[in-house]
């Protein structure tokens, strides 16, 4: 800003030597233009009109003053004396201008765009301050306390409010998460979408502004870049055409395309096959047998679901209800027809909406497998222990308790087995957050 003013003064000095009247008229014109621009800018912004007006008034006053000074200088006569006086005049002029600039927030500048932007920004800041002040005053009506103290109180109150708000939000988020409500996800999604929209809008604005700025060079660069892109595309296309006979690149592309086509065909075929073979499964009679035997002894209602798990070598899978889980397991173990005497694996899975216990059993007598599953409440995961049926369930159940927090009722020694005894949390849960004393 200062540098600009100096430049201005230099040019002014030159004009002074050449002829005052010419200079005056030229300056007048320049100022006129500037003022107009300034006003146009202010109007366009539609903000802080009042202060803009005051700035304009300031400028007008200044012009008048200058004119008077010039008149005085002219009446004093020419020569060394007048030169000195004009120099002094200039110094004073600079000082005045600085002050004026301060007051009028860069009312007159040599680089209109930049200055205008800055002054506009300052204008806005002032505007905001003013509004705040107003708000404060209106909110403080009737209070006799000093302004500063009130401001502090206000700030404190606001901070507290913010903290409260944050807490509330956190709480909400936690609750939503725990309940596994889809709604919250939707909310978050819409929030994210709104944010995206906001960003897009901002970007568009920025673009618009840039365009308005009339930056020829920018648009030129853009068009040049577009040109380059077009060029590259054209070249690629040419290369493709030319390389049809034996270009390395095109060969590769062809290969990739062929592979992709193959993969697609294969996927389609696989899908078709899957749909075809949906009917027969070698283990389907087994599953029917299990369901029939269980239904015959324990009632039809004990199973939630039963299906063939095609992804796991067609293992017949029974899904028990939490209330009937132990009964079914006991039945599978002790029924002479089924006799699942071998527990292959037992573990839990955290599905976020629910907790699942997966048990893989095998009957050495019949050489048949079965998978037993049960879905339990995730917040209070509790289920009967299978240790009374298979002693081998002891450690795996402890592991599930340790890593997932599933409590097995009737377990002889349900303590942590992998993690240290004083560990906080269950690491394999999806909502696990490492607990650190120092954080």
């Amino acid at each position: 800003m200062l540098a600009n003013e100096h430049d201005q003064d230099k040019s002014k000095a030159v004009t002074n030597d050449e002829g005052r009247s010419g200079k005056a008229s030229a300056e007048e014109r320049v100022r006129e233009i500037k003022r107009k621009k300034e006003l146009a800018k202010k109007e366009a912004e539609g903000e802080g009109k009042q202060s803009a007006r005051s700035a304009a008034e300031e400028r007008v006053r200044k012009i008048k003053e200058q004119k008077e000074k010039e008149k005085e200088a002219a009446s004093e006569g020419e020569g060394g004396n007048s030169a000195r006086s004009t120099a002094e005049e200039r110094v004073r002029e600079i000082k005045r201008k600085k002050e004026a600039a301060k007051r009028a927030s860069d009312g007159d500048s040599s680089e209109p765009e930049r200055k205008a932007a800055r002054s506009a920004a300052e204008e806005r800041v002032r505007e905001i301050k003013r509004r705040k002040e107003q708000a404060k005053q209106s909110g403080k009506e009737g209070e006799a306390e000093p302004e500063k103290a009130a401001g502090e109180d206000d700030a404190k109150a606001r901070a507290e409010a913010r903290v409260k708000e944050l807490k509330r939000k956190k709480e909400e988020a936690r609750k939503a998460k725990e309940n596994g409500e889809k709604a919250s996800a939707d909310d978050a999604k819409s929030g994210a979408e709104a944010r995206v929209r906001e960003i897009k809008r901002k970007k568009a604005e920025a673009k618009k502004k840039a365009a308005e700025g009339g930056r020829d060079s920018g648009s030129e660069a853009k068009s040049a870049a577009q040109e380059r892109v077009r060029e590259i595309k054209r070249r690629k296309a040419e290369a493709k055409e030319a390389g049809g006979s034996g270009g390395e690149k095109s060969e590769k592309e062809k290969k990739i395309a062929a592979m992709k086509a193959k993969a697609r065909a294969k996927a389609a075929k696989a899908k078709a096959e899957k749909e075809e073979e949906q009917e027969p499964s070698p283990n389907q009679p087994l599953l029917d047998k299990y369901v029939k035997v269980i239904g015959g002894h324990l009632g039809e209602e004990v199973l939630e679901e039963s299906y063939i798990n095609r992804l796991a070598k067609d293992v017949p899978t029974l899904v028990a209800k939490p209330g009937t889980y132990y009964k079914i397991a006991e039945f599978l173990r002790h029924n002479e027809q089924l006799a699942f005497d071998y527990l292959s694996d037992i573990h839990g899975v955290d599905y976020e909406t629910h907790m699942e216990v997966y048990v893989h059993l095998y009957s050495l007598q019949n050489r048949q497998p079965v998978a037993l599953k049960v879905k339990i409440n995730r917040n209070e995961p509790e289920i009967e222990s299978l240790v009374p049926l298979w002693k081998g369930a002891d450690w795996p159940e402890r592991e599930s308790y340790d890593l997932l927090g599933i409590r097995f009722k009737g377990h002889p020694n349900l303590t942590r087995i992998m993690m240290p005894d004083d560990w906080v949390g269950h690491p394999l849960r999806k909502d696990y957050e490492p607990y650190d004393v120092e954080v």
Partner: protein
Amino acid sequence: MIRTEEMLLNVGPQHPSTHGVFRIVIKIDGETIVEAKPVVGYLHRGTEKLAEDLEYTQIIPYTDRMDYLSAMTNNYVICHAVETMMGLALPERAEYLRVIVMELGRIASHLVWFGTYLLDIGAMSPFLYAFREREVIINLLNEISGGRLTFNYMRIGGVKWDAPEGWIDKVREFIPYMREQLSGYHDLVSGNEIFTTRVKGVGTYTKEDALSYSLSGANLRCTGVKWDLRKDEPYSIYDRFDFDVPVQQKGDAWSRYRCRMGEIEESLKILEQAVEQFPEGDFAKRPRVIKPPKGETYVRIESPRGEIGCYIASEGKKEPYRLKFRRPSFYNLQILPQLLKGANMANLVAILGAIDIVLGEVDG
């Protein structure tokens, strides 16, 4: 009447006979163990937790570190689980390569057990012989995979590299050499009266106990249960080979020894046939995108220590939603308190060693 007082004795976690970091708190009354409480978890690295953030191929090296004495079977179980979910069919050569390296690994693993178990109960030289033969296998596996212990050799859809030239011939030469050495072991150890007297009748359990405790491998077969997943739930190409499942009836440490030594012989039989049938062709047919469909799977195979299983819950992504390994050592070790109760203090190491645990596998 002599009044005795019980004493608490801590064994481990740093103790040579535990073969890793394993701790047992035992209560002894004189020379007799009244109660034993195993403490595990010192080597827990959270493989299952880590795997939830890893792509399937990236999980394979982690499985090497579970049962580090037979990393090939661990490699196989994760690949097999993913392949089962995706319905992939492997090239013949890949299947044969896998079977050959797995059986070599099984022999190496049993050799380590043989050497260290005898070392535990006081015989020094078998350890040196066992490690000499194991070194031959390790060199073979090193040649094909680039690793001596943690191979990271298998990939979803095949194996990482084809066998180098002449490698199959080296395996072929190894088979008669190993047979010869094995008969030497039998001369040196199996007929040794000091050894047989030391292990016969030690750590005995019944078939019912073994089944109830979910024991597997030689720990189960030593009680008369003829149960080998290679035979009973054939995976890979094991149904093409003619081999037996060694079974013993007594359920003691001696039976487990006999089972494992028999398994080395059977593995040699499989190797012999695999080398003869070894086909030409691709060593891998790896899918471009590894994304198993949404759902869950559980597969189990026969590792040197027993039944190793792998459960995957997939959401159709590159990473598993939940991964669980059924680790045989972890299940097999559960019976230890029952075996130690009432046993002589001097038999602690003989009983523990006969279970054949690898602590990396126990702790996951």
